[in-house]
């Protein structure tokens, strides 16, 4: 009897959490879900369309293109930033005055707001007044990110590497610093090469922080919006129209609430699914073949 009363009271204790989660996540998400099954012609009039928007989306070339562009972008970003970040972290000093200098200069790009970063690179790359664009043009390179899709991609990728590699560096560095000296000493005693030290000590010990780094960089790059919007606005043509840019065009530019809602949900589920895949694969890397013999 007494136990039952205690249980009833406990519900009140979790009520605030329920409310916060409801207002911050469940209700907004359900609004989007609601839109995705309906069509509207203004006047706040809605018509039930079932899963038509989802069907359309699956067959939409525009969506496929944006999705592939997005995958390619995230892939390139991870391929560059993760190895580069690890490399820089390995090269950073472990003690002395170099440590704060490196840490602060690494942290600086992370502190700059997204649209400021976009603006910096937008101006930096301009052929008429930008240091980078003008220099390249003077050297005879055909670089113009407003005209050339390749130039636009390179600009956005270099910008993202400049902006976010630091995050991987800082995480990898934290992982490296947590390795006790005894491991390096034992490796010397065992006669391990520099490569073996990396392969058998540093990389396994960094596994957890690298998982976080990869997840964060994947999610962020997959959702990138502000910087390409400021630099190229999705152009030239549609060449840098990533999913979030496309989504905003659809929802706010064309006011197609239904298709945009359907796309939002698919977008969200794709991120969730891919993050889960990364997490599962990386958590299991160390476990493979662990039951080989025994």
């Amino acid at each position, binding site marked *: 009897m007494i136990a039952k009363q205690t249980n009833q009271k406990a519900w009140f204790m979790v009520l605030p959490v329920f409310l916060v989660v409801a207002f911050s996540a469940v209700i907004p998400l359900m609004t989007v879900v609601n839109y995705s099954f309906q069509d509207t012609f203004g006047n706040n009039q809605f018509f039930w369309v079932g899963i038509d928007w989802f069907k359309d989306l699956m067959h939409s070339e525009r969506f496929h293109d944006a999705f592939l562009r997005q995958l390619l972008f995230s892939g390139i970003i991870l391929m560059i930033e993760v190895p580069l970040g690890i490399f820089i972290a390995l090269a950073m000093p472990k003690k002395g005055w170099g440590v704060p200098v490196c840490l602060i200069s690494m942290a600086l790009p992370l502190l700059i707001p997204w649209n400021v970063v976009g603006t910096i690179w937008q101006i930096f790359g301009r052929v008429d007044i930008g240091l980078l664009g003008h220099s390249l043009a003077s050297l005879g390179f055909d670089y113009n990110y407003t005209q050339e899709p390749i130039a636009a991609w390179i600009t956005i990728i270099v910008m993202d590497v400049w902006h976010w590699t630091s995050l991987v560096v800082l995480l990898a560095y934290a992982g490296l610093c947590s390795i*006790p000296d*005894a*491991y390096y*000493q*034992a490796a*010397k*005693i*065992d*006669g*391990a*090469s520099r490569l*073996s030290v990396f392969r*058998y*000590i540093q990389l*396994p*010990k960094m596994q957890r922080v690298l998982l976080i780094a990869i997840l964060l960089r994947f999610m962020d790059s997959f959702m990138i919006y502000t910087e390409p919007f400021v630099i190229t606005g999705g152009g030239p043509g549609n060449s840098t129209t990533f999913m979030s840019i496309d989504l905003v065009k659809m929802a706010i530019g064309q006011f197609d609430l239904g298709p945009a809602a359907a796309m939002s949900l698919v977008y969200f589920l794709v991120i969730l699914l891919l993050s889960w895949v990364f997490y599962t694969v990386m958590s299991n890397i*160390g*476990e493979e*073949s*662990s*039951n*080989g*013999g*025994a």
Partner: protein
Amino acid sequence: MANITLKEIAHSYTGYSDNPDDYALKKLNLTWRDGGAYALLGPSGCGKTTLLNIISGLLTPTSGQVLFNDEDVTHLPTEKRNIAQIFQFPVIYDTMTVFQNLAFPLKNRGRTKTEIEPRVIQLANMLGLEKDLYTKAQHLTADAKQKISLGRGLIRQSVNAILFDEPLTVIDPQLKWELRSQLKYLHKQFGFTMIYVTHDQTEALTFADEVIVMYEGEIVQVGTPEALFERPAHTFVGYFIGSPGMNIAPCELHGNRAVIEGHEITLDCSYREQPASAKVEVGIRPEYLSLAGPGQAGLPVKIVKVDDIGRHKIARVALNSREFHVVMPELASMTGDQASLIFDTAHTNIYVNDHLIAGEQP
């Protein structure tokens, strides 16, 4: 296989300095015979690990030379010295199996698979790791991980020396005893030079033929376990070795008579007069003190407490305000709290400024 000589070795973690207090290891000379079993004993922070790391080359000493036989290896990197070292906490390669962990030091030195395999299996059997040979090392218990660390230290058969840096700290007592006897057995069988760092006197005394006692960066005594017990060269060795440690009491010395707290005892030897500023102390093991009934020959003491620790009893007695520990046979019984304290003068040592001095037989 080599004799290892430390010549004028000193080390300071802050670089060269004229102030001897900056040195974690003060100038010392020492030779480790090939095939010897040594223990480095001392409290935490006395420079044991520093000394070990200098031998293995993980540290370059601030001054002095390290010689293997006659070759100067002071600046030779660790991997070229052919030294094995085992650390206090288990170091294992997480992603490797137990087999790969054990084989790693051999593989790095270019041994072939046919050489490695029998050796690994033999060692795994000896350490009781044979069941887990193909399991990932990270899934094992702390005990097993430390066994792997030990195994990686023992796998090479031609090392100059094997250095143990308190390797059994994380191991539980029963297994600790087993592993220590196994190390002892390996030493007998293969004749490796072994240097064993510990702050546990039982470990040091059971493992080693010769014990080096360190205190505040200096070597205070090198000797067999018996010598350390019978004739501690420094009051610290007296305190540190034995349980309870040696009784040390200030005294006045007049030839062959020592005056302790106003009571006189006659010693076997006579000693030269010491300057007035010197700190003169008498030291005697609790095992060499005995108690008799009150009023008999001996120093009149008050019994403060008697602890029965199984094989014998330890009495704490007070001579005025100074306390002594006395080891008594288990069946001894005292009535009342007054007794006479009797010194076994053959085992009574005199220390001047903490160092043992020799007397002259009359």
